[in-house]
């Protein structure tokens, strides 16, 4: 018991969590995007588009490319892919803790790491498209 | 058995105890005499009864007000049975203490310009009551508790039940406590001890007090020979909820609430408190803002005349707030709305609140000198458990929260001073006394003999107190109650505790509290019986005793413990150095007079 207390006083657990504000900010921003932008995005791109409910040519290959591989497209990807990914990563990390799976330090690295990787990939794709 | 040494031991974690602890710590720091302070409480400090105080704390604040006025109100409110030197000290230190609370973060209600706001209170000539919405005691207690966390020299012993003081050759040398969680005895050696254990409202069946308000500290000091003073004066608060007795604060009336009988008539004008003040324009010392004793007595008269209503099986009158409007009520009295809605299912915005008087405050207590010291050297008392002489025959609302601060601090400082000049007593002296305690506990638990039920005894006690020492008293009633207490004390010797566990044995604690209660109930009955006059909260119906009698009874009663034998009473002179007794009058009758 004493030992445990001692750790709490001075050990790593007592350290300031300067990374958490970053994750939380990304999580919050992602949450806003998820709530405000994603309903429309999912509705138009993942439902109307494949069901053919959009007017012909609305997202033809050319139009889609022009829209995406542009500065607004870059921002769009940031808001619709990257931030929501961090939002998801944050919730998954805490969700794993909630159901006692794995350990938090490792989960943190895996989740935020994956989100960061995929974000770089997504933004990279846009840049690649713009340079094409 | 645990044994620890402290410079100062404080029993009680309510407003008075916490203020004393901080006062002592500050004093020691100032005088560069590091001291260790133990703060014991049978409940966590923030559960102490101070938390329930609603209305506010008084201090002369505005430029129009004066120390003289506060002094006069307190002295006449107490029907001249107060120690005037003490009142003088009190009114001069009240403001400073409330400002100190503000400096510690107490969220006092404010005026638009950022200044602290004051409200009217019964029996006070002008508005001088500081408040924090209708949770003043709550905010004060939490502020004090939280502030006390700043002081590493204060070591808390939460949920330690103090069983006895250790006294040797007329000086206190420590306390003996039971750790509730484990049932282990703990010996605390001390150079000075402060009792701040609160009142004894639970001696009565129908009261506004918390379950812990059982007069423990009073009984402890009393058993060691300290006088209990003015114990016959028990304040009835005019506005308790029927059934539970939960308090509806006086601030309701200060804010403009009115009292009606079952016919919707403002009956207070018939009892020397008129003329009727216009709706929404309360005036100090008139009508609803008369003092508590008068208001409770008026209820009794109405009840006798059959003009009270019924709520469940209680007779009630009505407190009407509706004319104040929903917004104002919710802003100023939110807690009251919550209480009325939960406990009697009445919404004060829409309906008048049924209320009835309930025992509220113990004016008397452990006799101390003006510096809070008792007749035992090194033993101090402060707060509701003490009788420093501030309240006399009737306490004015909002004087006692301030009392906790003014005299809590004073007791703390005095104790600190003494501790700096005193040595600890020999531990063996304490151990001997602790062994006696152990034997008493063992006897309670082994329950030899007939095995009297503590529940029965407790009910008999509260019933007898209520019937004999109520709002109006008679010779016969009081005599009967006193006899009952003496019998109950005998029966108590054969009491039996069923629970044999050491861990958190609340049954054992209730039994010990009952033992304390019976002793001080006897003192209370004795004082009441012997005071053959009517004064403040002590009102007799007996022929020739319905008036104040300054010739024979401008005196404090002092009751002394005599072991198993009946207690003894003596009379003590009152300090009337500044203001000669005058008629205590309210309403128009009080105009022009000295008051």
């Amino acid at each position: 018991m004493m030992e445990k207390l001692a750790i709490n006083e001075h050990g790593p657990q007592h350290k300031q969590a300067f990374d958490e504000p970053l994750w939380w900010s990304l999580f919050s921003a992602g949450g806003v995007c998820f709530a405000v932008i994603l309903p429309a995005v999912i509705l138009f791109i993942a439902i109307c588009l494949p069901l053919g409910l959009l007017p012909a040519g609305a997202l033809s290959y050319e139009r889609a490319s022009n829209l995406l591989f542009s500065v607004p497209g870059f921002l769009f990807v940031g808001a619709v892919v990257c931030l929501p990914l961090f939002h998801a990563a944050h919730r998954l990390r805490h969700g794993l803790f909630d159901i006692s799976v794995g350990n938090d330090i490792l989960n943190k690295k895996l989740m935020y790491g994956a989100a960061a990787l995929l974000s770089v990939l997504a933004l990279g794709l846009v840049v690649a498209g713009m340079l094409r | 058995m645990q044994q620890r040494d402290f410079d100062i031991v404080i029993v009680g974690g309510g407003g008075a105890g916490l203020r004393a602890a901080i006062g002592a710590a500050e004093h020691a720091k100032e005088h560069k005499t590091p001291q260790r302070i133990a703060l014991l409480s049978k409940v966590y400090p923030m559960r102490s009864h101070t938390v329930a105080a609603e209305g506010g704390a008084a201090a002369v604040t505005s430029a129009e007000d004066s120390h003289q006025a506060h002094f006069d109100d307190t002295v006449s409110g107490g029907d001249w049975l107060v120690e005037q030197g003490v009142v003088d000290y009190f009114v001069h230190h009240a403001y400073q203490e409330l400002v100190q609370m503000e400096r510690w973060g107490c969220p006092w209600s404010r005026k638009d310009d950022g200044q602290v706001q004051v409200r009217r209170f019964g029996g006070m000539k002008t508005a001088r009551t500081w408040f924090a919405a209708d949770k003043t005691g709550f905010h004060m207690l939490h502020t004090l508790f939280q502030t006390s966390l700043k002081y590493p020299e204060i070591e808390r012993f939460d949920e330690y039940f103090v069983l006895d003081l250790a006294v040797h050759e007329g000086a206190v040398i420590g306390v003996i406590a039971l750790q509730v969680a484990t049932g282990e005895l703990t010996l605390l050696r001390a150079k000075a001890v402060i009792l701040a254990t609160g009142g004894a409202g639970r001696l009565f069946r129908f009261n506004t007090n918390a379950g812990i308000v059982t007069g423990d500290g009073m009984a402890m000091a009393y058993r060691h020979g300290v006088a209990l003073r003015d114990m016959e004066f028990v304040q009835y608060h005019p506005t308790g909820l029927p059934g539970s007795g939960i308090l509806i604060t006086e601030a309701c009336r200060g804010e403009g609430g009115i009292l009606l009988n079952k016919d919707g008539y403002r009956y207070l004008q018939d009892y020397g408190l008129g003329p009727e003040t216009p709706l929404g324009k309360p005036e100090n010392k008139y009508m609803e803002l008369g003092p508590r004793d008068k208001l409770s007595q008026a209820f009794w008269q109405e009840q006798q005349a059959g003009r009270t209503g019924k709520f469940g099986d209680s007779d009630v009158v009505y407190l009407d707030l509706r004319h104040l409007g929903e917004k104002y009520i919710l802003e100023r009295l939110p807690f009251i709305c919550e209480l009325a809605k939960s406990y009697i299912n009445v919404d004060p915005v829409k309906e008048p609140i049924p209320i009835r008087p309930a025992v509220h405050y113990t004016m008397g207590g452990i006799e101390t000198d003006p510096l809070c010291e008792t007749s035992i050297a090194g033993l101090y008392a402060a707060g509701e458990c003490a009788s420093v002489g501030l309240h006399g025959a009737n306490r004015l609302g909002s004087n006692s929260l301030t009392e906790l601060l003014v005299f809590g601090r004073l007791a703390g400082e005095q104790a600190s001073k003494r501790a700096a000049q005193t040595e600890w007593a020999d531990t063996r002296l304490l151990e001997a006394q602790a062994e006696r305690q152990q034997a008493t506990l063992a006897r309670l638990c082994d329950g030899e003999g007939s095995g009297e039920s503590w529940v029965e005894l407790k009910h008999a006690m509260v019933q007898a107190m209520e019937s004999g020492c109520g709002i109006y008293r008679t010779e016969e009633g009081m005599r009967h109650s006193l006899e009952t207490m003496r019998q109950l004390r005998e029966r108590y010797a054969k009491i039996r505790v069923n629970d044999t566990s050491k861990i958190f044995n609340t049954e054992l604690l209730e039994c010990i509290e009952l033992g304390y209660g019976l002793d001080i109930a006897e003192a209370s009955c004795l004082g009441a019986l012997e005071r053959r006059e009517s004064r403040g909260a002590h009102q007799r119906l007996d022929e020739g005793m319905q008036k104040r009698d300054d010739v024979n009874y401008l005196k404090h009663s002092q009751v002394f413990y005599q072991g198993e034998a009946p207690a003894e009473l003596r009379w003590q002179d009152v300090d009337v150095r500044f203001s000669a007794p005058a008629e205590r009058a309210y309403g128009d009758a009080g105009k022009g007079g000295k008051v």
Partner: protein
Amino acid sequence: MSTEQITTKSVSTNNTSIKHISVKRYLPDSSAEAYWQQYEMPVDDSTSLLDALNHIKEQLDSTLSYRWSCRMAICGSCGVMVNGIPKLGCKTFLRDYEGEIRIEPLSHFPVQRDLVVDMEIFLEHLAAVKPYLIDDNPVKPYDPKAPETYQQTPEQLARYKQFANCINCGLCYSACPQFGLNPEFLGPAALTLAHRYNLDSRDHGKKQRMTELNRHEGVWSCTFVGFCSQVCPKHVDPAAAVNQGKVEAAKHTLIALFKG
């Protein structure tokens, strides 16, 4: 003056019925296992759970242990689980329950006996956040001879008032799964108290408190479950306070970053 005739409403105190209450008993010095015990008693419309427990203690079984004091929902002693939800015994009315009523000690705290739990962790967490006014450099120094208050407008007071209403009952700790998962988490009430002082216009101790709050076991363990605010008997809304604390901690970090 005549107010209209008073309608004497009687909360039917006569409306009595018999109810069963099951209490989880735990008596460590006679058995290591907890067990359920059922009691039967008459109740009416104004019977609170605390009244019922007191009835048990005085009439049926004097060995039942529980805490209580004010019986008016202000001292914070009497928290228990009622059918799995943390509640104040004195503010829970049996009239609101149909069928069985199961009473257990507060969750997430070690049980000492019957309905009594060890609250020490709670107090440690409270003390950790420095819950007192810190003003090392007061605008106006306090002078006992001519004492003066700080100024605080009603608006400034309103900013923290709600968060100052916590009665330390601990219900929110029993409601918060994050505290259940990790007792080192400072928890809703302690974080709320810290926030209360941080919002107080008279206080200057935010920086000191932030080092406690901006820890993994500080605000960052909260996942906004929000049940804490749901069960809070005083409408303190600790969830809001904790999450406002996250914003503050984020600001604090930014500032620390820029100052190096």
